[in-house]
């Protein structure tokens, strides 16, 4: 414990510097907002993560968002336990037939205004699982998607950029 405390005092911050929001993501989100007038959510977002069929690679990297290095809570981004508390649904995986209903129910349980973020190649275009009879398809076929973060899995820093774009967008002219 003493070593932990000494490190905490002497080693300085563990966090990486805040990246700029991703340009492409910013555009996509701004477009999504322009199409649907919404009240401003302010500079904080509550996120509910839903695994709709991922291999758990994306979950590992989403977990990393909460570690002391990326520490997204410092930007007002918070992962919540219930869709009732969420502004954002963050969905991973090619949506399997077995998860389709649970995903739709989670979406319905999320109060408006809400955003849907597709994380990982599987959610974006089914990735290596494209063509499997056990999956419904890409997330956009099932839910309206406001932001895509590709990658297999996307590194945490890419997800941070996308999420920052979500937060920056409300202050852009609509």
């Amino acid at each position, binding site marked *: 414990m003493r070593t932990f405390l000494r490190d905490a005092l002497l080693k300085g911050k563990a966090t990486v510097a805040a990246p700029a929001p991703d340009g492409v993501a910013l555009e996509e989100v701004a477009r999504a907002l322009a199409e649907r007038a919404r009240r401003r959510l302010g500079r904080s977002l509550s996120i509910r993560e839903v695994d709709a069929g991922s291999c758990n690679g994306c979950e590992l990297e989403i977990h990393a968002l909460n570690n002391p290095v990326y520490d997204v809570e410092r930007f007002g981004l918070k992962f919540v336990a219930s869709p009732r508390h969420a502004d954002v649904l963050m969905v991973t*995986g090619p949506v399997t037939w077995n998860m389709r209903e649970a995903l739709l129910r989670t979406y319905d349980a999320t109060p408006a205004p809400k955003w849907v973020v597709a994380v990982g190649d599987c959610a974006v275009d089914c990735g290596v699982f494209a063509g499997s009879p056990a999956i419904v398809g890409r997330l956009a076929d099932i839910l309206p998607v406001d932001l895509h973060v590709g990658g297999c899995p996307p590194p945490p820093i890419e997800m941070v950029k996308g999420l920052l774009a979500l937060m920056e967008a409300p202050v852009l002219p609509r």
Partner: protein
Amino acid sequence: MTAPLLLSVWLGGRSAGPDGYVRAAVDAAAWEGLAAGCAAGSHDLSALWADGDRMCMALNDADRGLRAIAALATEQGAYPSVGRHHAPAVRLERAMRDLYGTRPLGLADMRPWLDHGRWPGRGDRPAYAFLPAEGEGLHQIPVGPVHAGIIEPGHFRFTANGETVVRLEERLGYVHKGVESLMAGAPVETAARIVGRISGDSTVAYAWAFARAVEMALGWSVPPRAILLRGVMAELERMAHHIGDVGAICNDASVLAIHAQCAVQREDVLATSAACFGHRLMMDRVVPGGVAADLSAEGIGQVRGLLRRLAETRAEILRVYESMPSLQDRTVTTGIVSAELVRQYAAGGFVGRASGRAFDVRGSFAYAPYDDVALAIRTRTAGDVDARLLVRLDEIEDSVAIVERLLSRLAPGPVRGERPPVAEGEGAALVEAFRGDVFVAVRLGVDGRVAHAHARDASWFQWPLLEAAVEGNIVADFPLCNKSFNCSYSGHDL
């Protein structure tokens, strides 16, 4: 009941293929005898799968160093049930029935497993019948499939008496992605990418098992440097997940300081992996014939630095863990799995080793480069959350030493062997993932494509033990039990 048939007796004189497996067709009597032998504890059931019009059963006898795959021709899909003799086979048989329509004769539990009645063209099914648990004062707590954290989906049905869990029934299959059907007919390279995504946390281990199975089927030789690099990657993967899970267990006991330290350390491992191999989880880096990323001289230095930091952090975490009675109060005697159950289910990984089962593929059926590192299999006997946590910390220490040894043997050379001509063939491999043994069997067609492939995750034989571990514990300790197992959903659901 059928008399048990010893694996060594059945094998008598048959010789093993290049992959170490003896393959032979059996009749129904021998099939049932081998199943009864699993139940009697004379050998372990390693995998059970359907391949065309036959059922295959992989068996291990680690004490005698024997491995075999018995194949039984089915009659329009019908065959004598293994689960009737040996409970660990029940879910495997239910899964194969859903996927291929095989009919395990004599299996008592004929409820679907992966098929939730949602697949197109398969028709609706009646509601899933959870097994009844009745008694005064009992109530049920349904949880999932969408859980309250960032985790994979699955459904848990707790039956509790006040705070005490008297029964837990798992229902899985939510992330079934049709992996086997996708691989059938795919080129080897495509199948390797799919296998690497069966369970993202074991991507190196799966890719390695698949690569070895293909290499044995084709006689594809792998350069020594590639074999050492595979070992380095697999150990980095093991260390990353062990350290992350140790933190997660402590987090569930509200010790955030350890969680934070472990998370930083885990990030260090992933960042080093990305810097050295070009991907944080090292996906698609192990490929048939070798590896897809070489380690530079600078990379070797980075890995050595990481090992030093890991050894320090591990020692400090152990020191803090052992100095906190409030933490041990939550882990010691919580979620006990008996040695008998672990043996019956042939539970792999730290789940088995924490209950005294000294099985680790790296030692029990050592494959290169582990055949040259003198690995001592470390076990504990308490079988509780504490034992599983300590086994993981032991393994991190071992991994640090293993990687150091592998790095010291690294000589310049190619990292991928020349591809042999297209040929049909069969191969199987066991590889020790961080969670336990993963098994991959591959059959290649004359066109060189994958005709059939089967992968079995360690979780298949660990999930049922979680049900047993939770019994008699309070509901609030379930997260600790669950994290100490950290079974894969995706790897299980395929």
